[in-house]
């Protein structure tokens, strides 16, 4: 991996292992690197422990999304979903993918890229959204695609799942957030985010467009951002409650305790409060960030990792400052 390739590397996705001690990250060259968090966080960590314990090529194209189930790591890029066993990855064995499935395509000319994958734990199915404007639901055990949710008019960027009501939220390039009921597979709501304004602050930022690239829910509340500014919505009343005055488009946002953390354009992680104020902006090494992940499964290695347009992944042990960086 020469210096030029390292310079042009972007990290698109991250996922923690089910035990919480390992981090897998996917980049734009199609490689997945597995890092050992316990080695990197131990008191006698060295330069070598910030390098991956395993680095293998998973796809031909970039790895847009990674997802961890209890036993497997699922990766998706240009059309194919591959499953890798975590047990093999932890043993530093270059794995052979145990299952290789692709979404059903209408025309065999193009296999659409897959931008987002989530798991519906209620009926153990994988929900996949990508370039063909549809959401495909696949049963995890049999690998058969059960249903298709059609409704978006442009490709889908992000997916999210509401546990309590069993609803799937999807945001896409067409600027609409659609809410689907997972049991009946019917659309419940459609919100065109760019049309709204809160307190005379328009959410739409015309120079960026209307695409929605990040979604997060916390039972009754929803965060969405992308082209329009990051905004907090109350889902029961379908009304926006606050707009966050962040410069640049936000690519990923999460709810954590009483804060909202979001990353996007700009070399910082923004901490915001529900009221609409930006509490802090923590600087980090990549010049713009694509992905943020919180390791809440394991209390010893409770860290936040962010990755973006750099070959380095920043690790935050205390969420207020950057501790160190892992590098590909």
């Amino acid at each position, binding site marked *: 991996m020469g210096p030029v390739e390292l310079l042009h590397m972007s990290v698109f996705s991250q996922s923690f292992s089910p035990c919480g001690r390992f981090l897998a990250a996917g980049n734009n060259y199609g490689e997945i690197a597995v890092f050992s968090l316990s080695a990197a966080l131990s008191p006698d960590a060295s330069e070598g422990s910030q390098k991956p314990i395993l680095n293998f090529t998973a796809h031909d194209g970039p790895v847009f999304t990674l997802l961890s189930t209890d036993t497997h790591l699922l990766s998706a890029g240009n059309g194919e979903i591959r499953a890798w066993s975590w047990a093999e990855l932890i043993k530093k064995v270059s794995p052979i993918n145990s299952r290789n499935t692709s979404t059903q395509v209408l025309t065999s000319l193009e296999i659409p890229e897959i931008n987002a994958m989530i798991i519906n734990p209620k009926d153990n199915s994988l929900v996949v959204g990508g370039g063909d404007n549809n959401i495909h639901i696949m049963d995890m055990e049999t690998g058969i695609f059960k249903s298709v949710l059609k409704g978006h008019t442009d490709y889908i960027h992000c997916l999210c799942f509401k546990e309590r009501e069993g609803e799937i939220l999807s945001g896409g390039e067409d600027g609409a957030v659609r809410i689907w009921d997972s049991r009946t597979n019917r659309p419940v709501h459609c919100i065109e985010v760019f049309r709204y304004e809160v307190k005379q602050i328009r959410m739409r930022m015309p120079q960026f467009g209307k695409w929605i690239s990040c979604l997060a829910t916390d039972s009754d509340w929803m965060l969405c951002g992308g082209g329009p500014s990051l905004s*907090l919505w109350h889902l029961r009343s379908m009304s926006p409650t606050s707009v966050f005055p962040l410069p640049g488009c936000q690519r990923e946002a999460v709810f954590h305790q009483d804060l909202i953390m979001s990353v996007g354009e700009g070399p910082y992680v923004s901490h915001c409060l*529900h009221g609409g104020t930006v509490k802090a902006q923590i600087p980090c090494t990549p010049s713009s960030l694509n992905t943020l992940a919180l390791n809440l499964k394991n209390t010893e290695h409770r860290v936040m990792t962010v990755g973006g347009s750099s070959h380095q992944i920043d690790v935050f042990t205390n969420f207020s400052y950057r501790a160190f960086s892992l590098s590909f």
Partner: protein
Amino acid sequence: MPLCVRARMSIKFFQIVQLAYWRMGSITDDEVIRKRLLIDGDGAGDDRRINVLMKSFNKWCHSNFSPEEGFSQYQRMVTSLAQCEFSMGKTLLVYDMNLKEMENYEAIYADIEKSITSAHEKIAECKKEIQRAKRIRKNRQEYDALARVIKQHPDRHETLKQLEALDKELQQLSHIKENVEDKLELRKKQFHVLLTTIQELQQTLENDEKMESDDTQESPVENGD
């Protein structure tokens, strides 16, 4: 004898044995060794005093001294003994002091342990407090956000009042409508009555006319007879 004195004596014995072995190895340094042994043979400090005392006691017992010399020798020995006792007393006191220091340190150590555990507990408490405070803050923020949205909508009392006013208006209007309808009915009925009476009158008039014309027709027939 206290432990330190015994230790020092054993060290001295070891040194002497070492020197003896060395002496066996090189003969040229005989003088040096002999001189060293002569000077240092008794040991240092307390050891030396005890050795000297023993030697002088032996000498005093076995040799013939004049009474003054013997007495002075005796005095010297007694002072030496007194010095030895003094130094022994000193070491005993130091030993006691060390023991007490140890106890003191143990007590301080136990105190520090206790304060460490209490600090740990306090930290755990504070962490729980922080979690609670974060939850409260989150709830307050959500409440504020929702309140802002709700404020944008008009006040409930006002809309209720408007609704009441509208209701009243509606009732009034329906009342008026009823009245008008009743009047209409009444007028209809009256007109109906009027028209029927007119028609009946017309009928009776026609009947009357008919009867009259019948009458005149009949009477000429009767007259012709």
